[in-house]
């Protein structure tokens, strides 16, 4: 195929509509497919955003895509934040503590580790790289029950460390920094510094570290998103509601919603729009990060997989 490239026409910036799709009927089918999937992906999110502004009655009888009222939105907000004495504030705080605590430890250990794996030589380097790759590709839920059994043995269950420490072990972050340091740092720069008498520590702190800002941001993004959204680990490790992150707290709200749990009727019961509001709040930090990070996400997931 590549031998035929001589006949390539000059590229223009104008979209050429007839290319790529075969005729009007083909385009019609493809457009229909696209519309179906756009609706599939968009409807639940749009509906969720609207639902949080309605009262329980309007949610059931009004048009699904009608707007609620500010009054109802405020009422839902008040119901959510008074639930179990403002439990959700504590849950959000816990989520922040766990996600950011683990993120900081991840950065502190991953950046030097990625640097060492990329630019120094020691006997355990290869085994460490292979284990990193293998563990990186297994789902993080696979180690949760073994970690529970281990931490139960040492009496850490219920302690914030029982989620922060396992989350801090983030092989993907080490892999990203390893890829970054082995492709983006000119080796001559490091050798020059050594010849000038820099110690190994100052080569790292004065040269490699200042250049690592992009990969630090990338690792921080992935670590935060994964930590914030983690459900199984805190679900298993933290028995008491006061220690829940918001993802696990949602199950408590769900259990108090009569529509999904008929035994929950009572003064502390949660209406559907309030549950919708809680769902929005539970993902808000990640949603905001996602709005600005598509390029980020792709560059991370494809790291090392594409040939430059």
């Amino acid at each position, binding site marked *: 195929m590549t031998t035929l490239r001589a006949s390539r026409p000059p590229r223009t910036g104008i979209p050429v509509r007839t290319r790529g799709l075969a005729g009007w009927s083909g385009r019609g089918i493809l457009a229909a497919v696209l519309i179906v999937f756009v609706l599939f992906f968009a409807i639940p999110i749009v509906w969720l955003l609207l639902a949080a502004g309605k009262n329980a009655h309007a949610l059931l009888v009004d048009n699904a895509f009608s707007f609620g009222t500010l009054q109802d939105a405020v009422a839902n907000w008040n119901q959510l934040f008074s639930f179990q004495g403002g439990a959700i504030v504590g849950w959000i705080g816990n989520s922040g503590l766990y996600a950011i605590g683990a993120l900081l430890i991840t950065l502190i250990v991953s950046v*030097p580790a990625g640097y060492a794996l990329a630019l120094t030589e020691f006997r355990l380097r290869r085994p460490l790289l292979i284990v990193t790759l*293998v563990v990186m590709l297994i789902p993080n839920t696979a180690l949760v029950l073994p970690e529970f*059994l281990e931490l139960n043995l040492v009496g850490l269950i219920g302690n914030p460390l029982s989620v922060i420490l396992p989350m801090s072990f983030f092989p993907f972050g080490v892999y990203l920094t390893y890829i970054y340091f082995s492709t983006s740092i000119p080796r001559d720069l490091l050798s020059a510094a050594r010849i000038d008498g820099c110690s190994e520590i100052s080569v790292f702190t004065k040269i490699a570290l200042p250049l690592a800002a992009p990969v630090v941001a990338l690792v921080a993004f992935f670590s935060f998103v994964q930590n914030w959204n983690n459900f199984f680990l805190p679900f298993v490790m933290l028995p008491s509601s006061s220690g829940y992150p918001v993802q696990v707290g949602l199950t408590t709200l769900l259990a108090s919603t009569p529509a999904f749990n008929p035994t929950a009727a009572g003064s502390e019961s949660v209406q559907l729009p309030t549950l919708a509001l809680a769902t929005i709040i539970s993902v808000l930090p990640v949603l905001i990060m996602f709005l600005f990070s598509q390029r980020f996400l792709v560059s991370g997931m494809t790291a090392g997989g594409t040939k430059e």
Partner: protein
Amino acid sequence: MTVTVAPSDATAVADSGLPSRPRAATGRRKASSRSRIGYVFVSGYGVLMLGFGILPALYALLLAFTDADGGFAGFTNFAKVIGDYRFLPAVGHVAAYLVVWLVSLLVLVVLLALVVHAIKVRWLSTTLRFVFYLPGALAGASSVLLWLFVLDPSSSPVAPLLHAFGFSSFVQVIQPGHLPVIFAIIAFWTGAGGWIVIMYGALNNVSDETIEAARIDGANAAQIAISIQLPLLRKWIAYMGIMSLAAGTQLFVEPQLLSQASNAVVGNDYSLNQLAYIYAFTQNDFNGSAAISILLLIVALALSAVFVTRGGLFEKD
């Protein structure tokens, strides 16, 4: 097809990115100091890997082969959990879900990536990818909760559609036979967008010249997709398939929340991870729980190891 690369690539993987170092120029003293510093730099990560990767796995292994009093139990625990009346149904549930999900994921992600890539109007293509990818922000409990609403005909934004299928109540929607499809829809809604964006990126690596040449040779869009674009996506399709297969075996939060929300119409022992959870937390049988965890861990490790050593995705030029 992607796993036909020679097994010796394991070495290539581990050595990738390694610069050829002028050993002779570096004195032995300097080399050993740099080796020491290497250990210092990886020490924090090494401790975490030991504490939360290797030791838990070894401890679970130990528990799986001992009884409650710590005596050696051979394969008794494994025989017990596999013989449990809930085990094979759970395997069946997870397998059914995996089939539905993987097939739809492979077919639809590739199709949507090709279609979006064929759109030459830039803002439209960007917007589409954004809409597909945004639900990825709702993971775990949040997306399941959202789908509880969508699947409940009384509140659902697609209630007419549910009624058209003959569903008038939530309980009718979540009949056991429907669950593999429901879980697949939730997982697809959350996860497919990221993969579509990735496949789209991979398609951008196909040079315009190649496509143009094929078109001049008389190939139509479908032929170009099948004979040029698909082979170039092969590695990514394999990557997606294996990662999704491994993640799918871990099914937990979806059936757990659905069980809670359905007043146990869906059992709390639907998936293998739920069963392992019940063994640990309801039956206080840590040895049985460890045995199931080890079985799941072996599957995950095997998939991952096959991919690392033979997939060739992590090679770098």
